[in-house]
């Protein structure tokens, strides 16, 4: 028996919880009660069948984007490929944007025709936002996935172009080629943020005996990373190695910023942090 989606209000009565298999969304809308209720029912309707449509094209979505020539038809899958395609010069599959694309899809469905002040869809840390004039969204940044604590807040105003937040790291939900404890990216969409965070986290890397790696398919079968080495453990690194790894990540992030693919990024590795784009955008907000 394959379980269907679970759709329920959380015990606080304000937030909607949508869960199906690996997708776990926390949804919240702000506005008039009737508008929120309508928005939640739109979100729930959109969520129904969403996973199945992704699964229908899963084999294609696990292919490197530069090898993908078949037309993708699923609406979430199309958001994934659109977000990933600008990064086609490196190895990346549409799956790198799946969490963000799901969040973008659900937020788009819930605001359609509704009058909401703001809303968000949080898909396990990859967040899609909706803001209206005068509204802002304050996100707490958790830079160590292993020991979650709010280390800084970023306030995203209506006037910024940011509507997506994503975090990636080797200890997180997905496998990583790099060693970053976390990379948090702010971008125009959650799908764009998702793929960028994944690729920047992959780039935060250095060769060091303290890093233990294993082929991805030895850990998760059917993974889009195939037999590429993924990080399994990172013990204590020396300062130079940390700086080198962060620099490599920062270089990749800068290139993405230059192409307009991301707005801000925060990279963290063993207590050291590099951020850019936050100060310029958020002024007084201090990150980490």
């Amino acid at each position, binding site marked *: *028996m*394959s*379980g*269907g989606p*679970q759709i*329920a209000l959380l015990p606080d009565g304000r937030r909607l*919880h949508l*869960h*199906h*298999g*690996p997708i*776990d969304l*926390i949804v919240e809308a702000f506005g008039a009660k009737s508008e929120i209720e309508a928005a939640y029912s739109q979100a729930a309707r959109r969520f129904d069948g969403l*996973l*199945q449509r992704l*699964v229908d094209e*899963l084999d294609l979505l696990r292919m490197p984007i530069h090898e993908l020539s078949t037309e993708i038809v699923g609406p979430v899958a199309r958001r994934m490929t659109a977000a990933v395609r600008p990064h086609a010069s490196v190895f990346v599959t549409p799956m790198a944007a799946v969490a963000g694309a799901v969040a973008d899809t659900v937020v788009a469905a819930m605001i359609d025709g509704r009058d909401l002040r703001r809303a968000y869809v949080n*898909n*396990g*840390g990859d967040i899609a936002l909706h803001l209206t004039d005068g509204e802002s969204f304050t996100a707490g940044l958790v830079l160590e996935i292993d020991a979650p604590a709010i280390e800084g807040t970023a306030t995203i105003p209506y006037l910024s172009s940011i509507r997506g937040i994503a975090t990636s790291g080797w200890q997180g*939900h997905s496998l990583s080629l790099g060693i970053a404890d976390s990379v948090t990216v702010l971008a125009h969409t959650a799908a764009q943020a998702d793929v960028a965070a994944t690729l920047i986290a992959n780039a935060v890397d250095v060769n060091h005996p303290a890093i233990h790696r294993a082929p991805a398919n*030895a*850990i*998760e*079968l*059917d993974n889009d990373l195939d037999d590429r080495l993924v990080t399994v453990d990172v013990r204590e690194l020396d300062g130079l190695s940390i700086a080198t790894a962060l620099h490599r990540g920062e270089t990749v992030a800068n290139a993405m910023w230059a192409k307009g693919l991301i707005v801000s990024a925060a990279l963290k590795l063993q207590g050291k942090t590099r951020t850019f784009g936050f100060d310029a955008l958020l002024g007084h907000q201090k990150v980490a």
Partner: protein
Amino acid sequence: MPNNPTAHTKIDTTDIDNSSANIGGMKEGVITCDACPVLCRIRPGQTGACDRYGNMGGILTRMDPMAVMRKVTDDSGKTVPFADDGAWDGTVLRPADTFITGIGSGTTYPDYKPAPFIVASKHRDVDMVTVVSEGIFSYCGLKAKIDTDRYIGPETAAVRCDGEQVGHVTTAEYGSQMLALGGVRHLTGGSKKEGTVTCRMMLNLCNGESVEFTIDGGATLTLQAGKPPIIDDLKEERMRVGCGSATIGIFAKQWHGHADEVIVVDDHITGVLSEHQAGRFLGMEPAGMRVRGRRSTPGRYFQVAEPGNGWGGTDVTDPLEIIDRIDAKKAQPGMRLFMVSTTGEDAAYFVLNDDLKPEPADMPEHLAMVVDRIGENCEPALTSILFMAGAGGSLRAGVTENPVRLTHSVHQSLTQVTCGGAPVFIWPGGGITIMVDVTRLPANGFGYVPTPAIVAPIEFTLRQDDYAALGGHTDSIRQLEDIDADRLRQESWPSDTRWPYSDHPNEGSNP
């Protein structure tokens, strides 16, 4: 990690008894998870894409923490600090206020292996043992009590989900309609789809989700434990105060002197005050208004109308329809007729004109007040779901090498049985057949296996010396303090549930 609201453990045994279903075939020990459409193939010791299901020794396992429940008040009644987010706060388990539940404990296969957790703790200087397991129940069903007098369908009619029969309408009870749902014949005796739909329906109802049903020749129902039933898109707000006769029995004196006749409209028994024993006792004379239907005893009428969504669960929307004739020898012009339904939701007041025809009139304030009082006395209509299962089978082998002694011990009240900490009703007679109110378990206490069958937590608690005497797996007893706290989630013990470690097992524990 995404938040993790669920907490049951699923054990998939299909790779053992149906090897083609779940062994990947080409890769040794790989199993395919069928918990969602992704169908992850999972290597031994790894989890699927959701991080919720893992391959533990070839068995698909729900990777959820085991639930322990802690008393939130100390002996003086003061509240003990408690992490209300359900996360383990890292403190060492204190035997005196901790009860370990079967939720998330997993089970063992084959059954004769000791249950996953046999835990000793000391309560009031007596060494207690709790044998904790998650039972896989093929023989299990649900009894749904639906507080309504509305007609939901004929007795024994098929109850369906997604077109599959998953149960039937059973004996109506006072103020409530009853369904028997699930059961072994629908789970495993019919088509694969019937079994799957039945299993999902039971799991959802047990875990507090809403489920939609259709009844052959009857209504469409949406049921959710602890919530008002929705019948043909109408939410049932309240139970009737009683049948029409009972309503007269309660309110006759309050109506006396304010009307010459009161007719209480009800689908089951419609009451006519002046003919009813209560009216005669108050000295009322029969008013000569003969209602339709079949007279049972004086002032009590069956079948005055068809069942429906009108007055008192009948199909009546104009109450005068049920008056068959007015006897000119007894009735007089100016007589006051008051009609009301058994929930107080409908009421009307008439005065007979010179042709003895009832004419609508303004309802006197006193009668309106009594109508409100009928409403006030109607309790909220709810759906209650009892889970019923037989724990008297091979599951007992995980507790003792001599299973019948466990059965005897339970029936002698030496062993207390709980379901996720919740008290159970134990049926008399053979076996250990339990019933439990699903709303008294911690959230998501139930799981399933694709067999299909329902997984429910079950705990047997007894004195350590009694446990040894019944042939228990005493070598497998672990001290409560030694349980790996990393895999635990904690729940607060509900204040209205009896603490299992007390002196009188099973006594007064029935819901």
